[in-house]
Structure formats: structure tokens, C-alpha cells
């Protein structure tokens, strides 16, 4: 902070004081508060992951007992899914960017937005309480009948997820209405940035799928407290019903996570190739297509749960269908790069990492959607590797890419490009060391969620653990240089990347109401051939 330059009023410094943050209705501040909260969750879940990998350095007990190991992977999964990935891009980056990309002053319901945030915090408190009061050991999927009988604190964890679900639903409703009602003059549906389309598709899933999770978890709580018997075979209930209910939400939830990530990638690729997106409408519609198909594939998690052959075949076929809109997006992104003026800045490196890792995650998803292969690979490390390629290789890469891309806008500071590139490379290499190895482990028969393993798997397990250190180091670097940039970073110009979407037309950091004049939109969000970026 140089003393000579006068500091302009912006959303960060006016109004001042801690209470102005606690009661804030500004979507940007709420986005920043989410960013802080999910970062804490990500660090916590990441530490659990490192500990889990460390335990597997050698066969036999090293740090934990078998039960502690079960609790740790449950906490890792539940925290990463419910506290980090689901809210990550929509609630932090989305909250900050969505109204600005629309040219609006705020989301449609600012008070509801703040309420969602505090509901999120209450949910987080329940999850943390579960952690200290005999952490749940069911896995993040809470399958019955084990979850209705284990003596660990399943109730507080499921209540936590239940409450977090409401936060997610309310955010979804808010974004849905914002996108419908708050677009700047001239911004028709097909002039919206693709990030908005992605958030729109996400909001649809949040509103339609999350309540089913809510009722499922509530039934599980009632099962444990009141013995209602719905999931208990001894009372005439059906534990497989839980799996159906759970995956009816949790498969679409995968798209709650990946769709916003795909939206970020569309922004990054156009901005750093300085080219209009190839096939705008197809990319936009494919988000909606994914949201629709998302509801029809949950049965692929039950291929070995006694589902009928007919149901299995149908679910398998429907699962393959997801490949089509996903493929459309990938090809269109690549086609966008063709003959573009590519600028290999850190966010773009993350976009490239996303493309590589998401393709591997997607293809192995198609493999697992095939019945014959799934029966072989079910509940092995192959599945673990697959969904980490999608969740971490896909969503987290896009999240980091988006975070770097919008960081100058959020805080008005530039991070170190040099360290950004190094960290991205470390993360990419470390990630593949951890999880590509797990594809091999899985194909050799290593079952997931096992505390111990046969000696023959030791070299691969150890390699995966070394990878986790590289990955951890990369992420630590990101944390360090981003925080450092807040203190020592160069001031960011309004539009450091030369992008065309509306958020770059206002100051970095923006003023409280985003724009001094409501912007008017005359062209598409990526019309680089028509407009010179200011």
C-alpha cells in the first residue's frame, strides 16, 4: 500500500468495520466470506487426505486404528463434498461474479443471500461437532443399514449435510431469479456469458435435486432416533431404497459441482485465446442437457446392489448419454483455441489442466458406466481415481483457474505470475502421481476404503503418497503467494486480461453497487472480432 496514491472507495473499504461485514448484503462481500469459509474447509479436508495417504505409505497400521481410518475418510469425503466442492464455485466465485456479468447491482434477494451464508455456517458447525463427538465412520454416502446402527455421531453429520443442503437450495433459487430478472438492458439469453448459463443449469439441479437429499437425510435421522423402519429390513423397510434416494440427489450433485467448473473454463479459454467461443449455443444448451440427463442416471451406482438387469442396462445406456454434451463442450473449447492468440497465463494453464484431467475422468466414467467393467471395478481404487479426476482434476482445477482469473477483480491486486505457473505445474504433476497410480491400483484389484492392503500394492501406494506431497506443496504455494499478493501485490488494472465480459468494465476492486452507470449490452460476451477490449 503506497501512501501517496489516494485509495478510492470500493466494496472492500466502504463501509468500514467488522459489523459492516457481518450484516453485509453486498453479493461481493458475501462471495468473499464464502471464499474464506470454503478455503478453510478445503484446507481441513486436504489435511485429512494427506493423513490418509500417509497411512497407506506401508501396509499395516502406521498412524491410525482401522476405525479412526474409517472416520478420517468419512470426514475427508463429507467435508470436501458438502462444505467445499458443492458451494465452491457457485457460492464464492458465482456470488461475486454473477451479478457483475449480468450488469446488475446485486443478486435478486440480497438478504436471502446472506441467510444462505449463515445457514452454511450453522451446517458447518454441525459437521465440526460430529468431528469432535465421535466422528461418523460411514463414508460420506451414509449407506444404511450400517449408518443406522454404528455408534459414531452420524446424526450430527447428516443434520449438518441437511442444513448445508438448504443453503445450497436458497443460493440456487437466488441465482435462478437473478438470471431471469436482473440482466442488464440488451442482454438477451444468448448474449449472456457462458459462466451464467452454467450457473443457471446448476441452479436448476440445486432446486430440484437437493430437497430429495434433504428428505433422505431426514429419514435417516428419524430412522436412528425414532426407529421409523423405512430403511430397516427387520421392520419391513428397504436399505436399498436409501441408495436410490441418496444417488437421486448425489449423482446430479456431481453436476452441481462440474457445471460451474465448465462455465469457468468457457470464460478462461475465450479470454486467453482472444477468440469468440466456437458454437456458443451448443455450449450453452449442453449445460442444460447435462442438467436434464443428470436426473436419469443415478442407478449406475447400484449396478451391484441387486437392481434388475433391465434397470441396469437402461441406466448404463443413459449414463453413456452424458458423454455427448460433455464431449460437445470439450470439442468446442478446443476448436475455440484453434488459430487463437493464446496467452499462457496461470488461469489458462489451469484451463488446460482441466481439459486433460477432465477428459481422463470423463472417459473412465464411460468405462464405469459399462456394466461388465463396472462389476469388475466396483468399489475399487479405479472408482476413487475416476471421481477424483472429475472432482479435483475437473472442479478444483477450474476453481483455481477461476480464482486466479478473478483475483485481481476481487482484491485489486496482481499475484505473482511466476509462482502461479510453478504452483500449477506442481499441482498438475502431483495430482497425476496420486490418482493415475490409483487407476492402476484399482485395475489390479485394490478395494477402496480398506485400512490395510497386500504387500504387492506397496510400491504403487507409496508412489501415490509421494504424489500427495507434491500436490500439497503446490496448493500450499498457491495459498502463500495469493495471501502475499494482498499485501505486496501490484495494483490491478480494471481489465488485466483484456476480456470482454461486463465485470471487467468496472474498477478493480469494484465499487459497492458494481457500476457507476448500468451497462448496456450490444454484442455477445466474447465478440473479440467486433470490439477492442478497453
Amino acid at each position, binding site marked *: 500500500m503506497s501512501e501517496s496514491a489516494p485509495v478510492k472507495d470500493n466494496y472492500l473499504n466502504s463501509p468500514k468495520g467488522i459489523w459492516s461485514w457481518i450484516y453485509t448484503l453486498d453479493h461481493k462481500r458475501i462471495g468473499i466470506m464464502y471464499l474464506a469459509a470454503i478455503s478453510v474447509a478445503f484446507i481441513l479436508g486436504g489435511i485429512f487426505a494427506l493423513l490418509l495417504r500417509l497411512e497407506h505409505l506401508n501396509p499395516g497400521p502406521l498412524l491410525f486404528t482401522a476405525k479412526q481410518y474409517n472416520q478420517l475418510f468419512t470426514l475427508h469425503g463429507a467435508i470436501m463434498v458438502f462444505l467445499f466442492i458443492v458451494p465452491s464455485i457457485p457460492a464464492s466465485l458465482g456470488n461475486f461474479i454473477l451479478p457483475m456479468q449480468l450488469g446488475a447491482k446485486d443478486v435478486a434477494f440480497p438478504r436471502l443471500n446472506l441467510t444462505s451464508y449463515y445457514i452454511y455456517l450453522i451446517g458447518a458447525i454441525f459437521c465440526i461437532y460430529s468431528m469432535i463427538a465421535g466422528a461418523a465412520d460411514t463414508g460420506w454416502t451414509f449407506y444404511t443399514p450400517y449408518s443406522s446402527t454404528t455408534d459414531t455421531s452420524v446424526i450430527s453429520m447428516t443434520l449438518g449435510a441437511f442444513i448445508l443442503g438448504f443453503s445450497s437450495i436458497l443460493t440456487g433459487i437466488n441465482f435462478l431469479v437473478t438470471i431471469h430478472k436482473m440482466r442488464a438492458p440488451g442482454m438477451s439469453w444468448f448474449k449472456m456469458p457462458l459462466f451464467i448459463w452454467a450457473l443457471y443449469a446448476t441452479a436448476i439441479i440445486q432446486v*430440484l435435486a437437493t430437497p430429495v437429499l434433504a428428505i433422505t437425510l431426514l429419514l435417516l435421522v428419524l430412522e436412528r432416533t425414532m426407529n421409523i423402519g423405512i430403511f430397516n429390513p427387520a421392520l419391513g423397510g428397504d436399505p436399498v431404497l436409501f441408495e436410490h*434416494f441418496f444417488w437421486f440427489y448425489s449423482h446430479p450433485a456431481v453436476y452441481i459441482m462440474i457445471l460451474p467448473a465448465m462455465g469457468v473454463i468457457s470464460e478462461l479459454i475465450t479470454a486467453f485465446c482472444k477468440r469468440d467461443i466456437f458454437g456458443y449455443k451448443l455450449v450453452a444448451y449442453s449445460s442444460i442437457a447435462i442438467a436434464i440427463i443428470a436426473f436419469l442416471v443415478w442407478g449406475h451406482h447400484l449396478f451391484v446392489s441387486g437392481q434388475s438387469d433391465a434397470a441396469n442396462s437402461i441406466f448404463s445406456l443413459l449414463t453413456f448419454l452424458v458423454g455427448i454434451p460433455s464431449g460437445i463442450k470439450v470439442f468446442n473449447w478446443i476448436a475455440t483455441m484453434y488459430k487463437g492468440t493464446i496467452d499462457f497465463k496461470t488461469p489458462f494453464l489451469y484451463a488446460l489442466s482441466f481439459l486433460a484431467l477432465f477428459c481422463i475422468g470423463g472417459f473412465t466414467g464411460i468405462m464405469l458406466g459399462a456394466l461388465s467393467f463396472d462389476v469388475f471395478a466396483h468399489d475399487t481404487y479405479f472408482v476413487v481415481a475416476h471421481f477424483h479426476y472429475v472432482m479435483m482434476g475437473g472442479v478444483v482445477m477450474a476453481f483455481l483457474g477461476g480464482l486466479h482469473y478473478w483475483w485481481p477483480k476481487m482484491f485489486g491486486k496482481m499475484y505473482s505470475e511466476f509462482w502461479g505457473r510453478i504452483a500449477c505445474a506442481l499441482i498438475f504433476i502431483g495430482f497425476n502421481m496420486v490418482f493415475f497410480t490409483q487407476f492402476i491400483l484399482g485395475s489390479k484389484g485394490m478395494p477402496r476404503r480398506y485400512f490395510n492392503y497386500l504387500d504387492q500394492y506397496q510400491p504403487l501406494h507409496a508412489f501415490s503418497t509421494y504424489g500427495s506431497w507434491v500436490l500439497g506443496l503446490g496448493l500450499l504455494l498457491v495459498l502463500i503467494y495469493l495471501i502475499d499478493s494482498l499485501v505486496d501485490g501490484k495494483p490491478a488494472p480494471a481489465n488485466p486480461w483484456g476480456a470482454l465480459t461486463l465485470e471487467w468494465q468496472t474498477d478493480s476492486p469494484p465499487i459497492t453497487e458494481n457500476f457507476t452507470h448500468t451497462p448496456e449490452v450490444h454484442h455477445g460476451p466474447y465478440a473479440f472480432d467486433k470490439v477492442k477490449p478497453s
Partner: protein
Amino acid sequence: MTTKVTQFVKHQVAHHFDNAEHEFDAAKLGMWAFLIQEILFFGGLFVAYFIFRAMYPAMFVEAHHHLSWQLGGLNTIFLITSSFTMAMAVRSAQVSQKNKLILFLVLTFLFAGGFMCVKYVEYMTKIHHGYLPAKWFFGTGTFDTEPLFFGLYFTMTGLHGLHVLIGMGLIAWLIIRSNRGEFHKDYYTPVEMVGLYWHLVDLIWIFLFPLLYLIG
């Protein structure tokens, strides 16, 4: 009319909306999205109901005889009437009739309260005779799985009852604000939104009543 206008409070449109209509449209769309998620929330319970009814048809018929269709019917009348009075309340707000608005809201509140009282009597009889979920069940039944029916019964009507209670809270809040003259032809968004919510609560009961009380 002109003399009455003075008793109303002028509504301030939130800063990020263009005008009152814009604000109203946004609220209405949000409310519909919320109602859709409510339907899916209860949808899970209805799916569970149909699965178990298909699995144990005879048990469902036997178990439902322990419910009183007369009391259930009375409650149905209560809720349908309350939906009507709620609709009248919205209408009164739209034409700035403050006293009628308060009257209809109070009536709606009373019918809702009547519903909860009947529900209380019903629950007490079930608890007294032991028609309860699983380990608390000590009623007489020909089927082992009968507690499952009561597990579903208490979950479905319990969650619905919770929604009625929340609705009563909202209506009470509307009564207080109406009394201050906050709702009139230029601003009645909260009345309309609570009205929509209340109709949904009514609608869910319209499905619950035949499915639980009138089987066979």
C-alpha cells in the same frame, strides 16, 4: 377511498430493482422455485409411501383402519376453507381493504389452529393406543410390518404439521404488518407469497388425506 389512503405505509423498492413491478415479479418467481423444491422434498416421502404400499398392500389396508377418517375429513374441511380465506385475504390486500385483510388473515390463522388441535387429538389417541413407529409400537395388528405404516404416517403428517405451524407463524407476521397498514394495492408481495405457500400446504394435505385415511 381518498381518506383511507393515509392509513397506509408507502413501500420502498429495494435499490437494485428498477421498480415495484420488477421487485414483485422477482419475488414471485423465487417463491415458485421454492414451492417446487417443497414438492420434491415431500415427493421423496410419497415415493417411499408408494413403494411400501405396493410391497404390503394388505397391511396398509389393515393399518389405516386405526386412523379416524372423520377427524381427517374435518381437517380437510378446515384446510380447504383456510385456503379460501387466504385467497380472500390476498384479494383484500390487492384492493387496499385493510379491515377485510386482517379479518381474513385471522380466520385463516384460526382454521390452521383448528387443524393443529385436531391433529393433536389424533396423535394423542395413536400414542395412547400404541400405534407408533417400530420399537414403540404396542397396538394390536395382524401384520409384523404394521409399525412401518405408522412410521410413514407420523413422518408424513408430522412434516406436514410442521409446515402448518410455520405457515401460522407467517400468517401471524402478516397480521401484525397488515395492522400497521403496510399492505395495499401498491404493495402486497408478502401476502401473495405466504398465500402461495399456504395453498401448497393445503394441496399436500389433499394428497395425504386419501392416501393415509381412505385406502381400500
